[in-house]
């Protein structure tokens, strides 16, 4: 039977196809027990293949914890992660930019490998849940065939680069950041200098300082477009902030430089990544994000280190080559409206007021498609793709508020587009406002979820929807965001009304609660964080929202923002007004408090697992040595098939992989050419006597030097001998790695 690999041959870019082949081989090797589970876990995370709740094989059913009897009970895909447990596939969508065909493919994948639902995240990714790991290579191939890679969607890597969805159409932007964000995305994707990080790393772009779209303040690198007049010419550059992050304790990013030229953008980002990879915490996962390093060393020292690292970088033509193609991402509108005579359907006026944003270009609008909890079905996705084709020129974006945005819609087409969205069940008004509640996955699928953020968000959205006539536009514009745990994926710190899932013990029983955080600032690139007021039982959160919005509605001063209102009346007063919602009735009085939203089970935190947000700390060397092992395995298969010439080439490549991994520890600027690698390996590891062991001395090193210098083997016997020598070399490389680690830590080498 035809496979997807065969069916898509010729459609997949070579590099993407090769990566997927490697991953598929790694899956096979893990099933054979030939890859360590931690290494495999980080490997799959870097392909966006993430764990889900209950994947440790345990699930509390409300009465007791049940073991889930997966077929391959003993096989794992990571520590405490059962092979057969369904997982989440995160799909990177750089800057949220999607074509209609890409969306259609995702719709197909959702219904063939997932549950028919696509989920948009707060970082412009798309996620599919309940995916089996053995389906992921084909899933990736189908994505690759439409130009999408899932590489480094999770794990300790540079995550999806996000950008302002209004870029190019915005009234307040300095310039369109899209080509720069794209350049950074592809430059850092798979780059050697971002493979050794102790934690994930997030980058965002904003076109201006005042709007929220880029959310620069809570990113590891936040880039804000600006221009300067230099020598009579307008020059483009960026204000660059670093070390922001949410999590349990949010940190606002600090100014690294108020002017980074467009020519220096990529090398500066590269240098920052190098500093993080070199000096960032690797042991304590709770303090491994870049923000902790920035605080620990201080911004002045970080600035010095980045400058120092920048000087050391090996020049790369890609730093500036993209600058001659800046216009490639420019979007153009359809020349004429396609359905200008369409009458306005019911609800059009409010939808237009809340879901449509005029563009800088007269006559055009950006239309938000509100997705409840970030979810939409495969059928809806196909419908949206069709609308994207009909009403725009492929100008779709996913948004950080878990919605979709269609750009360059003719104003005259808005009634027709609205009518089509009504038919799709996607015309809900109130986008990005009070009733459009943002939520992380929480206890639905996240291993770390403490409370049901989605359950709460669904209830809030339902209650708040349709009540807009009873409140002012200011109140309707407030933002509500819910996180199921302290990792803050729901971005509650920067909401007007934020909720953070916590658990409390009441009379020996667990009660789901949410910490109330008020007055966060979404504007000014999420300029400041909210105030924590106290925890209320989950069941009382809707009443808390009513109380706070009601007070704001009644007591605000003209033009006063919610943040200003909160600051004026004070944390103490707000807490006082919420005290009555903090009490928990006894279980006998009201057992509903002891269950979470949308979940009839008695509440427990027993299902919390080991999160994978932090990934596994696997060094560049470990990945390199694993690649070498994989190469030897493939060489053996080739040899078994009688392809001895290819087998010899593959075994030599495996040795070069191992040598590069080791040598790069001493020479970070090491290139990728085999000649350079072998030369540097000889000079830095062999001749100084580092690559040697007690029994063989440096003998195994000579295998690489000899095989590299020699031509192809003359026969199968010689190829087999070379493969055996390559195996010895890679084994010796492992020993050398241990010696290097011991030397670095001041311990005696084994």
């Amino acid at each position: 039977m035809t496979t997807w690999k065969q069916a898509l041959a010729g459609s997949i870019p070579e590099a993407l196809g090769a990566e997927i082949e490697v991953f598929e081989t790694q899956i096979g090797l893990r099933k054979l027990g030939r890859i360590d589970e931690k290494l495999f876990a980080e490997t799959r995370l870097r392909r966006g293949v993430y764990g889900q709740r209950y994947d440790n094989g345990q699930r509390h059913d409300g009465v007791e914890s049940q073991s889930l009897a997966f077929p391959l009970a003993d096989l794992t895909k990571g520590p405490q992660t059962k092979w057969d447990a369904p997982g989440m596939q995160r799909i990177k969508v750089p800057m949220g930019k999607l074509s209609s065909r890409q969306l259609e493919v995702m719709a197909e994948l959702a219904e063939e490998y997932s549950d028919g639902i696509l989920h948009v995240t707060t970082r412009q990714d798309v996620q599919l849940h309940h995916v089996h790991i053995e389906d992921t290579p084909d899933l990736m191939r189908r994505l690759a065939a439409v130009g999408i890679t899932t590489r480094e969607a999770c794990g300790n890597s540079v995550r999806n680069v996000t950008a302002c969805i209004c870029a190019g159409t915005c009234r307040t932007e300095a310039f369109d950041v899209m080509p720069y964000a794209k350049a950074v995305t592809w430059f850092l994707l798979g780059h050697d200098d971002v493979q050794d990080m102790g934690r994930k790393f997030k980058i965002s772009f904003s076109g201006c300082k005042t709007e929220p779209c880029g959310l620069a303040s809570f990113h590891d690198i936040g880039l804000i477009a600006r221009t300067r007049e230099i020598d009579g010419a307008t020059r483009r550059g960026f204000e660059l902030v670093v070390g922001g992050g949410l999590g349990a304790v949010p940190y606002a990013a600090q100014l690294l430089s108020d002017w980074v030229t467009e020519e220096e953008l990529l090398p500066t980002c590269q240098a920052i990544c190098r500093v993080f990879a070199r000096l960032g915490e690797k042991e304590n996962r709770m303090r491994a994000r870049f923000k902790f390093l920035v605080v620990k060393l201080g911004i002045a020292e970080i600035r010095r280190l980045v400058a120092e690292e920048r000087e050391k970088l090996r020049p790369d033509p890609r730093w500036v080559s993209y600058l001659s193609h800046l216009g490639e991402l420019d979007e153009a509108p359809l020349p004429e409206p396609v359905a200008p005579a369409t009458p306005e359907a019911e609800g059009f006026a409010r939808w237009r007021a809340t879901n449509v944003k005029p563009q800088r270009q007269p006559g055009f609008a950006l239309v938000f498609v509100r997705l409840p909890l970030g979810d939409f079905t495969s059928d809806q996705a196909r419908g949206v793709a069709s609308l994207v084709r009909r009403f725009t020129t492929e100008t779709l974006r996913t948004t950080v508020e878990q919605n979709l945005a269609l750009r360059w819609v003719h104003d005259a087409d808005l009634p027709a587009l609205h009518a089509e969205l009504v038919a799709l069940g996607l015309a809900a008004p109130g986008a990005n406002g009070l009733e459009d509640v943002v939520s992380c996955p929480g206890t639905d699928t996240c291993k770390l979820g403490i409370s049901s953020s989605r359950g709460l968000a669904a209830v809030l959205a339902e209650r708040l929807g349709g009540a807009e006539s009873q409140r002012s536009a200011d109140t309707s514009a407030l933002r509500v965001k819910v996180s199921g745990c302290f990792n803050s994926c729901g971005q509650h710190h920067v909401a007007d009304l934020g909720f953070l899932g916590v658990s409390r013990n009441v009379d020996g029983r667990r009660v789901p609660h949410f910490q109330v955080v008020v007055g966060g600032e979404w504007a000014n690139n999420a300029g400041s964080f909210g105030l924590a007021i106290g925890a209320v039982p989950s069941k009382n959160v809707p009443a808390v929202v009513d109380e706070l919005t009601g007070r704001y509605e009644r007591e605000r001063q003209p033009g006063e923002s919610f943040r200003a209102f909160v600051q004026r009346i004070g944390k103490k007063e707000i807490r006082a007004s919420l005290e009555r919602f903090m009490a928990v009735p006894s279980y006998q009085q009201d057992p509903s408090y002891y269950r979470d939203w949308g979940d009839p089970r008695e509440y427990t935190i027993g299902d919390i697992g080991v999160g994978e947000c932090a990934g596994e700390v696997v060094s560049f060397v470990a990945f390199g040595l694993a690649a070498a092992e994989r190469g030897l395995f493939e060489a053996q298969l080739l040899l078994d098939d009688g392809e001895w010439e290819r087998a010899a080439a593959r075994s030599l490549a495996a040795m070069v992989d191992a040598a590069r991994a080791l040598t790069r520890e001493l020479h970070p600027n090491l290139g990728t050419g085999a000649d350079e690698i072998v030369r540097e390996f000889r000079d830095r590891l062999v001749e100084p006597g580092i690559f040697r062991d007690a029994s063989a001395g440096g003998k195994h090193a000579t295998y690489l030097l000899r095989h590299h210098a020699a031509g192809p083997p003359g026969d199968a016997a010689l190829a087999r001998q070379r493969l055996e020598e390559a195996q010895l070399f890679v084994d010796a490389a492992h020993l050398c790695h241990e010696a290097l680690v011991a030397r670095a830590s001041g311990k005696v080498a084994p």
Partner: protein
Amino acid sequence: MSQALGWKLRVKVPLTAGGELDAHEVGDTFHRWIQQRSVDDVAIYVSDYRHVANGPEVLLVGHATDLVLDRAGGRLGLALQRKRDGAAELVPAVHDALRRLYGGAARLAESLGKPLTLFASGELELRLTDRLRAPNDPATAERLLPELRRALEPLWAGRSFSLERAGGDAEPFGARATCAAAPAIAEVVAAAARL
């Protein structure tokens, strides 16, 4: 690498006209089944998508199959999605899915205290959720509709039924079966159990 050898498919029995099921109650029921360890699969999750229009409302997510209260296409019904480990031949794969589907429907009705007649006895929707094996084109229809017909024949006690290709071009290959003179739903459930 993927489970390409086994058929992935979805069968759905709609509710009779005007019939409704409360998704909240169905979700609670699914949870209870997991508590009772009475699901014929490794039951993992109960997913709640009530907020999504015309899609799955509540899913009992299993390792190989999902049981879904589903409103796709605007019509509420119960669906069985076979995700993996399905039979390699289409007829046994459909039979397995029908057995699970009608068994699930009967059990759900009983658990909720609803009459089994809530479910339509003479209607069935099928989707082959595998575009590689069953691209949605006329050739697939010509190749697979006869097999689907053969798979469905025992369900309605040999009575005549129509089987037509259904769904848009971009959707997975689908078909709709209608038996105007279908026996009572209890008989259909019993027939499915014998497949």
